[in-house]
């Protein structure tokens, strides 16, 4: 049996930085990744592979989740929950089970958190029925690592001061902004009319080539949900794992499913047990283990890892593992621009596909409102509607009466939907308040194809999330009115977006209320760290990937000290 300095479980945003930093520092590293190793020349703009077949995510017959969703209240006013497997519902909670994880498929909106996000309870006070806490670290602890990610992973953009901007140690992003879609002029105009600050989106996409391995963006217009064919996207695979392997100190096994971490009498983990691509059960020994399987699966693995000192699961002595799961609250909306309303040149510009809609707003990151008081708000991101044509066509087949449309009428509908207008969307990212109704446990009935209990996930939300989302939604729609968009619509929902997950193993100073210490080390298992988004006690109001990357670089430095 081989022994490594560090064994990392998962190769995405949480695993990549640790593999990169430690292997480049000369430590021996093994990365175990459940998914396949698809490389740059395996990624094409193919809607079937990307989004309509189980290629980048597991086949649900092999592996699924059980979701407990809100189902009204009983006569006593208590919440009721309905339980259904994702195999039965079709509501898939897997994201990018690949080398590089879901970072292969991200859109790459890379916003930092604000200092206030690290002390939400102190800044905004308690909210009834929400488990809001301050973090055990501050923004200044993470800031150098945000700067590091911008450099190493590659973030492009233009730093533009605005009232809610966070402090920065560097004046500019290391890479200039990617090309922008002409529709950004419409957004700028609409925001200016409302005295809002339309800002250029920082993005983990390289505008030009930086090495033989990482080319610049090809501007095909197919970015989010797709793997990058040029290496421009700052996936963990492109930016970190490839370099780690090239160092000669990092080995990677793909299609290796870790089933449990085996601990000794002292509580220390000595082996990881996994099933390899040939269905052989193996174990590996290491001095340090890093768990980074994405939030839900990380909790599941810890709960499945029973040991002499971990009778309730690894790190679960106070029943905190899996608790306080987070998603991203908020909603989305859109407006349409009909080509006939514009002259030929403007219409042609609107039709363009390829450059990015690099615009976002943080005017409502903090709210002062009569009803909400001083409250935490969120971020608004603008984007074109997703280009996937099959998905789009499939949505056209239903008529206004919810009956199928076919024949000549269907073809007319399709032609109109595809050729008459450009749809601009906006997405609202708000804090998903941690509550007792959002958590992961092990399902007692269902198992995956390897015989391990699947994760059961209760997905309750806090009503405050909807109030904040609606506050931002109504104001965002006004921007679209100023842009003279048609068919303006939007909605806010408590439904969790499966691709934006965090929490479940929050870090903190008190072992009774947290799973990890402030270094992201399990309180009573000194050689196990968690570096995917599971450590987050509150999530902030931006997508998580940038912060997960930055924190994993921070933890890598701490692991170096421990080795």
């Amino acid at each position: 049996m081989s022994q490594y300095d560090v064994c990392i479980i998962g190769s995405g945003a949480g695993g990549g930085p640790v593999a990169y930093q430690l292997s480049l520092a000369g430590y021996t590293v093994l990365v175990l990744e459940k998914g396949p190793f698809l490389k740059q020349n395996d990624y094409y703009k193919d809607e079937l592979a990307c989004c309509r077949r189980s290629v980048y995510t597991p086949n649900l017959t092999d592996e699924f989740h059980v979701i407990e969703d809100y189902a009204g209240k009983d006569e006593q006013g208590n919440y009721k929950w309905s339980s259904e497997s994702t195999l039965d519902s079709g509501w898939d909670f897997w994201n990018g089970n690949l080398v590089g994880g879901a970072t292969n498929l991200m859109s790459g909106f890379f916003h930092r958190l604000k200092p206030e996000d690290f002390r939400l309870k102190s800044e905004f006070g308690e909210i009834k029925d929400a488990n809001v806490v301050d973090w055990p670290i501050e923004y200044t602890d993470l800031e150098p690592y945000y700067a590091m990610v911008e450099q190493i992973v590659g973030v492009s953009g233009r730093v533009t001061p605005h009232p809610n901007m966070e402090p920065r140690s560097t004046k500019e992003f290391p890479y200039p902004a990617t090309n922008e879609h002409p529709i950004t002029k419409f957004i700028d105009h609409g925001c200016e009319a409302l005295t809002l600050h339309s800002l250029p989106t920082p993005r983990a996409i390289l505008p030009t080539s930086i090495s033989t391995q990482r080319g610049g963006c090809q501007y095909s217009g197919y970015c989010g949900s797709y793997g990058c064919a040029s290496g421009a996207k700052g996936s963990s695979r492109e930016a970190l794992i490839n370099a780690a392997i090239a160092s000669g100190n990092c080995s990677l096994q793909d299609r290796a499913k870790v089933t449990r971490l085996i601990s000794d009498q002292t509580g220390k983990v000595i082996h990881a047990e996994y099933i390899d691509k040939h269905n052989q059960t193996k174990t590996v020994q290491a001095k340090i283990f890093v768990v980074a399987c994405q939030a839900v699966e990380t909790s599941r693995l810890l709960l499945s890892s029973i040991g002499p000192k971990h009778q309730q699961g690894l790190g679960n002595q106070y029943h905190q593992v899996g608790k306080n799961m987070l998603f991203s609250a908020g909603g989305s909306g859109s407006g349409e621009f009909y080509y006939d309303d514009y002259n030929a040149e403007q219409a042609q510009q609107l039709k363009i596909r390829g450059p990015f809609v690099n615009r976002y707003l943080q005017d409502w990151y903090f709210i002062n409102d009569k009803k909400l008081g001083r409250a935490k708000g969120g971020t608004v991101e603008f984007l074109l509607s997703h280009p996937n044509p099959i998905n789009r066509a499939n949505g056209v087949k239903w008529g206004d009466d919810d009956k199928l449309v076919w024949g000549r009428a269907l073809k007319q509908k399709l032609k109109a939907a595809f050729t008459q207008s450009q749809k601009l969307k906006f997405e609202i990212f708000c804090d998903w308040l941690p509550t007792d109704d959002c958590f992961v446990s092990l399902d007692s009935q269902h198992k995956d194809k390897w015989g391990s209990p699947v994760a059961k996930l209760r997905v309750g939300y806090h009503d405050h999330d909807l109030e904040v989302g609606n506050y931002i939604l109504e104001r965002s729609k006004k921007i679209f009115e100023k842009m003279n968009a048609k068919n303006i619509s939007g909605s806010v929902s408590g439904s969790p977006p499966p691709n934006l997950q965090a929490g479940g193993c929050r870090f903190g100073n008190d072992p009774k209320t947290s799973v990890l210490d402030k270094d992201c080390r399990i309180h009573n298992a000194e050689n196990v760290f968690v570096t995917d988004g599971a450590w987050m006690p509150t999530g902030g109001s931006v997508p998580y990937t940038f912060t997960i990357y930055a924190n994993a670089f921070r933890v890598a430095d701490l692991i170096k000290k421990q080795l």
Partner: protein
Amino acid sequence: MDENKKLLTQWDNSLSPALHELLDANLARRHFLHNAGKAIAGAALIPSIALFTACDQNTKTAISTTLLTEPWPTFAAVQLVLFPNDGNGPSATDLNAAAYLNFVLTARDTDQDDRRFILKGIDWLNRLANSEVKTNFIMATPEQQQQLIQKISTSTSGERWLSYLLLYIFEALLSDPVYGGNPKGIGWQWLQHQPGFPTPGKNKTYPELLKR
């Protein structure tokens, strides 16, 4: 209840509630952005044909011959009702929609329940056609075919069956031509859709990636 209504109800009742749910879940999954398709144990036993555009001449000839025998002419006729040659863009025939459906139903990752349901739908359609117009669907007049499709759409199973067929027509219309539909990108051109690039070669199609 008239005879035809009974037939449609019978079709609905012939499927267990669990299968109804499963088929709906499969359809729903195909509507979500990040997902689709599930195989079940034993699916690998289904002989898989190579992709139509990516295979050798012998295989192409074999597929063409297959498409001449039932149920494929009937599938092609139904697809033409759903996506007609009406002077507005390509028809199902132009899109090679029947060959594409054949590819889907023989692909290793296609769910067996989906496959059985889609194939069984032809039987139910012909039972209805024989009851209604005393002939198989393919021999009915264009007007009769329209009426039969309209009629089956009023049942749960019938609407679901048509929904599946439409989904795979859309895939034949808008997926990469390497999969056999959308020849020379006619679907993209008709809808003025700008495809992404690079596009997959025959060695990088999704069935090839699934082998990795």
